[in-house]
């Protein structure tokens, strides 16, 4: 056995001799100064990466808003632009595959800023050795999901990398959208008294994907909820002028969205027993030691709606295939400093915070 000497491989942590000199603010990213998996988890560590490394170097007014999609005024038109990389493992999971995700995720980001999808650009990095039938399957998914969402892939790129460098394939999708007339969504519009809604049951995507991960001998009836939400979301903002904000609870889950709201100065109170979840998802989360509020969803949005329009919003959602189990889960309050609170099923209260990043199935 050859021991790798310290200094190579793992960098020493910042000196422990003077704890007072260590980071005291959230801006400093300090986990031994290497990127760890949790940086991509959509939780606290991702935030630190964005605020600590990316914004200081690339920041500008549009980017700094950190919305699901950027909204830009171009020659009098209000356009939305977004991009996402899809690195899901395994490539195929119950309810979908990376291709379906690649369309839904991007279309949904556009929908979250009140935009209808106009066009997609697709870039694929394929691993040497990838089975052609897998590629065909993924392309077919992209095509059919595109049809479902009413949007085409108009530009693209394909690269191939050596075996071992892409785990099958990675896809990046860029989406262009047109913000619907008169629609302006954002946390600035959120007010105390507004209702918080979700269009259906949570945690299905993340748990369905985990059930296919190697090394977890756990299978499930759960199926990913991946779906393009533009139809429902666009209808909602067209019909109801009281929709303040839409956010899709992907990585980081519903907890991430609610914690973000609190970080932006808006307190929310959520009723745990009002949050829709199937018994199967609840049991799977219990089994894996995960909090369902922190698990990714790919066919859901959290909507903040003026109180007097909450019932109308609910009715609209419930008429739609993707909103059959929509529910009001809580409300915005005027509590300051702002926090996201959960009223638990037994009448207790506790804080909702953003997860760390990599929600590892725990056992003990």
């Amino acid at each position, binding site marked *: 056995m050859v021991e790798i000497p310290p200094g190579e491989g793992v960098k020493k942590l910042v000196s422990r001799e003077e704890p007072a000199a260590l980071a005291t603010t959230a801006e400093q990213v300090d986990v031994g100064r290497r990127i760890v998996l949790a940086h991509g988890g959509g939780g606290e560590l991702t935030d630190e990466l964005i605020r600590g490394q990316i914004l200081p170097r690339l920041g500008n007014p549009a980017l700094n808003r950190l919305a699901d999609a950027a909204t830009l005024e171009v020659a009098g038109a209000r356009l939305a632009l977004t991009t996402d990389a899809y690195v899901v493992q395994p490539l195929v999971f119950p309810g979908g595959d990376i291709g379906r995700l690649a369309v839904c995720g991007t279309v949904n980001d556009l929908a979250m800023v009140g935009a209808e999808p106009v066009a997609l650009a697709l870039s694929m990095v394929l691993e040497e050795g990838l089975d052609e039938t897998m590629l065909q399957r993924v392309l077919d998914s992209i095509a059919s999901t595109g049809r479902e969402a009413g949007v085409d892939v108009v530009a693209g790129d394909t690269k191939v990398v050596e075996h071992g460098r892409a785990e099958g394939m990675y896809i990046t999708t860029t989406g262009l959208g047109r913000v619907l007339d008169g629609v302006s969504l954002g946390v600035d519009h959120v007010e105390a008294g507004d209702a918080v809604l979700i269009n259906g049951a949570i945690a299905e995507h993340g748990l369905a994907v985990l059930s296919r991960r190697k090394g977890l001998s756990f299978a499930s009836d759960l199926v990913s909820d991946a779906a393009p939400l533009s139809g429902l979301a666009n209808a909602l903002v067209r019909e109801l002028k009281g929709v303040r904000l839409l956010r899709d609870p992907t990585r980081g889950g519903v907890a991430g969205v609610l914690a973000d709201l609190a970080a932006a100065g808006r307190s929310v109170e959520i009723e745990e027993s009002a949050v829709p979840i199937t018994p199967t998802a609840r049991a799977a989360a219990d089994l894996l030691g995960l909090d369902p509020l922190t698990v990714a969803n790919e066919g859901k949005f959290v909507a903040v709606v003026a109180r007097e329009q909450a019932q109308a919003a609910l009715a609209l959602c419930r008429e739609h295939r993707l909103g059959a189990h929509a529910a009001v889960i809580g409300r915005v309050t005027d509590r300051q400093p702002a926090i996201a609170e959960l009223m638990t099923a037994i*009448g207790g209260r506790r804080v909702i915070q953003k997860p760390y990043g990599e929600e590892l199935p725990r056992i003990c």
Partner: protein
Amino acid sequence: MSEQIEQLRQRLCSASEAADGTVRIMEVCGTHTVEVFRQGIRSLLPANVKLISGPGCPVCVTSQGFIEVAVRLTRQHGVLAATYGDMVRVPAAAGSLEQARAGGARVQVVFSARDALSVARESPKLEVVFVAVGFETTAPATADAVLLAEREKIRNFSVLAEHKLVVPAMLALVTGGQTRIDGFMCPGHVSVIIGSEAYRPVVERCGRGCVVTGFEPLQIIQSLTRLVEMTAEGTARLENVYTAAVNAEGNRRAQQLIDQVFERNPATWRGLGQIEGSGLQLRQAYRQFDAFERFGLVLGTDPEPPGCRCGEVITGAIEPPQCPLFDGVCRPTQPVGPCMVSSEGTCQAWWKYHRVRV
């Protein structure tokens, strides 16, 4: 169900009024710590009932020396460390297992001891080391994996284990006197293995009530109510509200398995020091599977990170906000000590659910 909760709450309130002053109940188990927070139970307690989190988070009480050994081991060529999720982020002087992985070391999170064995079967060219911590609930699984490895002659598998036993720690906590404890909420699933009678010495020698408790909120509130009632009455009894899963003698088969493969040793507990007969080490007959022996590792007494007060948090002597590092230097994204790393660590639970009072 809300009527049941309401009734219990009223009973708990009456009991707490009958008690003289503050009643301090320790929930020993990390899963109880998390459930209490997640269910918002603290917000339902009467003002004079204090819940103290105990040393029931296996990752939190693992000695710093053991963590150092585990991390250094992964930097050896040809070694793959398989471990439960919580262990990967505990910081050692040279970084955590997670950071070692980011630097190229082979570290894999497994769900069960048998999964670690499967990894060894599938990777014959690698030395697979199962890094195992945990109490009596988890030790039988490690024992089972060792026996299976022996039966199937899997040579590239070994175990780096620091399993610990709960009752010796409870006794040490009371006799050590670092913190006053009036009664114990006993861990439900450890009790499945060891049986409710295992807590008899705590009741009889130390005069403290013990209630074996499951993890549903009703169970927890029921248990708290009984413990407060006992304290108010000045009686110490052994009770069990988790009869669905726990009986008096426990799981004999699991106990025999532990006994066959392990023997007791004086383990080092963060915050409690060395406690006689509180740990498990592989018996001579199974030392071939002991990673300490196989790799010539020595458990040092590595110092804990400067300023870290996990030891005092674990024993209930202080609450997380009383640690100067809490929520400034030490946070879940940049943990200093294991109480902040582990999803069952008191500091992490506090930070996630209680940092802002609701």
